[in-house]
């Protein structure tokens, strides 16, 4: 467990932090591990979802048909630690499609015209040639944030930072308080209703301990999910973006790769081909503990004001 001073040092709460494992108290530890998920080569096979379920023995979370393209998994959750999102975007929007006058029948953003060159459509394996539809596929996962709100708000110490810099729930400690659930700026961790405890991706902590690759990355047939040392992955990702830009895919951008962003950078980051919110990701997540000092100051001031009000209430005349 960390020392109190380390808990309260500002760099533990927000901003750039190059070595979260050391910050958590590991003196000698392996390099920080992570995922680089390159969605430009994802083919939506869901092998990652299956491999994760099988290796980690994650139970099913219902069999629902959503009508959202090929996505019946819907979202990350207590029993879904990899989630493949499918986004179907019309390349050329026919006017009658948007003028049907049926508000709510289309998801927000659907009606936006997607202006992509034909060269881009040809470059992407995910774009189907004749149907005029661009398919975006992305395998989402826990971001293993540098500043992990779930870990910070956990009152039992169940959530902890591993020597690999990842964030893991100790299920024998978790008492199901649920605080981590609304704390996560990405909506990743959730409570398993029939169990009561919180669950999420462990970045295959057990496999990492044995020097193995996490199940999802191992199963990915296109190397869309790449596992490795975070430093190296960031370099590889920067090179990949550059390569795509050179090929004319201007929409390629990295998400969660910047160590100066609102969560200090993600341990699991992405290459996206559209705005993050199109994939169900927050465009500018900020860890809640950035404002922790302000929160406690205001709570303290509020408590003092209440105490003052209590005292002042007895200042009046007797018998009233």
């Amino acid at each position, binding site marked *: 467990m960390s020392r109190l001073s380390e808990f309260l040092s500002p760099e533990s709460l927000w901003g750039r932090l190059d070595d979260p494992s050391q910050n958590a108290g590991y003196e000698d530890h392996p390099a920080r591990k992570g995922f680089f998920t390159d969605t430009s080569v994802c083919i939506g096979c869901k092998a990652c979802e299956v491999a994760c379920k099988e290796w980690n023995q994650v139970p099913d979370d219902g069999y629902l048909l959503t009508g959202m393209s090929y996505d019946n998994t819907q979202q990350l959750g207590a029993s879904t630690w990899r989630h493949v999102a499918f986004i179907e975007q019309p390349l050329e929007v026919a006017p009658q499609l948007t003028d049907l006058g049926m508000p*709510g029948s289309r*998801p927000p*953003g659907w009606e936006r015209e997607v202006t992509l060159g034909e060269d881009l459509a040809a470059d992407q394996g995910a774009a189907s040639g004749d149907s005029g539809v661009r398919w975006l596929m992305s395998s989402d996962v826990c971001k293993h944030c540098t500043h992990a709100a779930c870990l910070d708000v956990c009152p039992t110490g169940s959530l902890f930072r591993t020597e690999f810099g990842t964030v893991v729930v100790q299920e024998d400690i978790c008492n199901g*308080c*649920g605080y981590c659930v609304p704390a996560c700026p990405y909506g990743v961790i959730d409570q398993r209703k029939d169990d009561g405890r919180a669950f999420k991706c462990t970045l295959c902590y057990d496999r990492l301990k044995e020097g193995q690759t996490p199940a999802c990355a191992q199963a990915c047939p296109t190397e869309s999910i790449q596992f490795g040392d975070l430093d190296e992955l960031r370099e590889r990702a920067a090179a990949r973006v550059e390569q795509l830009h050179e090929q004319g895919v201007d929409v390629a951008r990295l998400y969660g790769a910047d160590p100066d962003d609102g969560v200090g950078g993600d341990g699991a980051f992405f290459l996206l081909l559209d*705005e993050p919110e199109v994939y*169900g990701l927050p465009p500018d997540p900020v860890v809640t*503990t950035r404002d922790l000092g302000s929160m406690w100051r205001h709570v303290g001031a509020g408590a003092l004001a209440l105490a003052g009000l209590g005292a002042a*209430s007895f200042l009046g005349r007797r*018998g009233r």
Partner: protein
Amino acid sequence: MSRREQSMVPEPEFRSYYGRPILKEPTWKTPDVPIYLWIGGIAGGSALLAEGAALSDRPGLERVTRLTAATGAAIGTVALVHDLGRPERFLNMLRVFKPTSPLSVGSYILAPFSSFAGAAAASHVTGVAPRLGRLAGAGAALFGPPLATYTAALFSNTAIPVWHEAHRELPFVFGSSAAAAAGGTAMMLAPTAESGPAVRMAGIGAVAELGIGHVMEQRLGMLAEPYEKGLAGRLTKLSRGLTVAGLGLSALSRRRPWVRRVAGASYSAGSLALRFAVFEAGRESARDPKYVVVPQRARMRAREEEAQRQGSGTLSS
């Protein structure tokens, strides 16, 4: 989206993944958690009133407020434990102390408060160890105000937009709401001849609650919407109505004990409705990706404009 209301105001343009939520809705149970916030406020405020009553020799008020503080702490603890997914592991809350977790800090406020308030009430009722009882009462009065306001940090220290962005105002909203509820409860239960301090505490608390609530909504901008619309909006209106009714009835209650009791009940119910309103607004802001995307995009735009104003390449880290 049957939950979403039809609005005449055009929706701000934003994109999302098939309209699906980005955040997870809090899994905290209702009514457990709203009731915990409310009764924690009542208990904390009552512990203050009890010490004042003891110091100013108001035995009737002291008796009522000591019992209220102890009962409130007990009910609050039960509600908090019941809310856990694994209630038998409640004691894991005291396994570590983490200033980054308001729930951890809160556990170290609730545990001593409950012990002090329980001991003070037991001593007061039985007459056993009166000096220790008074000491325990002072301890409860010390932990009472933080018990009433830490719950604001509990909610604010999350990614829920309407809670987090209200982190400056919420402690004062909860603190004043606690004053209104604790004062109101004492007005309801204590002898009228001794309930003057409770009337003042509730009255000032009610005015502050309304005023700071208004400031909070002004500052929240588009994030005030969840507090004003739907279920949370109806609860907010109910809360304001009950609080205003409490103020009005209280003003008429000098020689009418019954009116004073009704005014107290109205204050207290107003505080309860407020806690439910804040809880429901938080859930709604987690359900609708609009409340995540639109403010974050605005933040990004503001940052870009700021960077452009300062000129490129001169940004400090």
